[in-house]
């Protein structure tokens, strides 16, 4: 797929959703780095190969809704999901300093089935810890999209709710829920580990009640979320959905 096709596709997508004329305008300015451009290279044996670095390594396939199977089975699985929350070890802002005390003797979140996992593939909860700059948001989106569904987001601190003390900064976002679906907000600046534990309890309640289906919401409103993301991430050198 050439850059032009992608642009066309995205524009088409953007025009579908209503309040995004500005986003479409921004996306025109998107540039592809020289090393990411689609090009032809000569292989060692002399044959000519077409490479498109972004789409060769990742699939740009759109996410699909994965319906819960329902009934007793789903309830049982939800119980297991609630009791085994694997958190991605990715500190996105200043709030990540609250995570070490959370896992160490004083607060010991392991008691509640909360564990840290080092790779997005194995984790199902994401703590957005505090302010999120646009540059970090890009990495967060990539990590979030690599996590297998069902997945949950805990937004930590007032920065993720309304921008907090960085509400007027040119490089940090104001509302996280415009870019990624949030399950639980934990207010404060910074919230103490107790607040974080309370957030986990709230998340457990939601999962057990079958209400933590934000991964499906993300898939459903994918175009809208993607348009919002592209409005601010101008250096979009990755496929639209990268897993």
């Amino acid at each position, binding site marked *: 797929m050439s850059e032009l096709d992608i642009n066309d596709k995205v524009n088409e997508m953007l025009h579908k959703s209503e309040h995004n004329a500005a986003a479409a305008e921004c996306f025109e300015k998107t540039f592809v780095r020289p090393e990411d451009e689609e090009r032809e290279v000569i292989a060692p044996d002399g044959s000519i190969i077409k490479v498109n670095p972004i789409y060769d390594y990742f699939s740009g396939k759109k996410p699909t809704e994965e319906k819960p199977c329902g009934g007793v089975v789903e309830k049982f699985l939800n119980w297991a999901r609630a009791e085994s929350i694997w958190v991605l070890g990715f500190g996105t802002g200043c709030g990540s300093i609250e995570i070490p005390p959370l896992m160490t003797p004083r607060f010991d979140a392991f008691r509640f089935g909360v564990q840290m996992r080092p790779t997005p593939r194995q984790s199902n909860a994401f703590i957005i810890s505090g302010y999120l700059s646009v540059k970090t948001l890009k990495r967060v989106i990539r990590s979030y999209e690599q996590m297998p569904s069902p997945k949950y987001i805990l937004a930590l601190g007032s920065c993720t709710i309304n921008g907090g003390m960085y509400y007027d900064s040119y490089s940090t976002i104001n509302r996280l829920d415009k870019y990624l679906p949030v399950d639980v907000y934990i207010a404060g600046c910074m919230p103490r580990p107790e607040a974080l534990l309370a957030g986990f309890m709230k998340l457990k309640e939601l999962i057990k009640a079958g209400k933590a289906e934000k991964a499906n919401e993300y898939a459903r409103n994918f175009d809208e979320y993607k348009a919002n993301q592209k409005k601010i991430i101008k*250096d979009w050198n990755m496929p639209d959905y990268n897993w």
Partner: protein
Amino acid sequence: MKEILDRIQSKYNLQDTSFRTDTMAFTTVSKELAIDMVTYMRDYEGFKHFVMMSCVDWIEDNKLQLLYLLNNPTKKCDIGIKVFIERENPSMQSAHHLWKQLWTYQRELKEAFGIDFPGSPRVDENFVLEGWTEKPHMLRDFDTNKYAEETYFPREGRSTNDPATYMRAKLYPNQPVTAKKNKDHE
């Protein structure tokens, strides 16, 4: 410190020389002579340690001011060399050949103030922002509040207080404001 400055006073036509302490002086030099002077200070006066480089936006005078801060580790003294450059299409002679860390400083200044340093390695690459298309964000006529409002979906109902007045009203509601205003901060 003073005798060094006296010695080079006429050579570089120093202006506005001021001493913060006995061992720390700031002086202004013309744009053409600046890098020459930095080189001289490094090679002949022993200011071997490059502390930092920064920029101030004097929007009222339509000027940008660059500051090279150097340190002499043997005599334990510092000198700040200030340079005024034009604000429209700012450009400055690169000093990356003197200290390698200037690559990064100049790259940062290019991104934050839009100052060009021709010949400085990797000066056009992103520094902290990725794909920034607006005007340089540290210039004072870039309205960060307006930009954030237009770009980042501000949440309705957010209120904000000036910390000083708010805390004073909270802690000492009946006490009149008596603290002297600091003249420097007016």
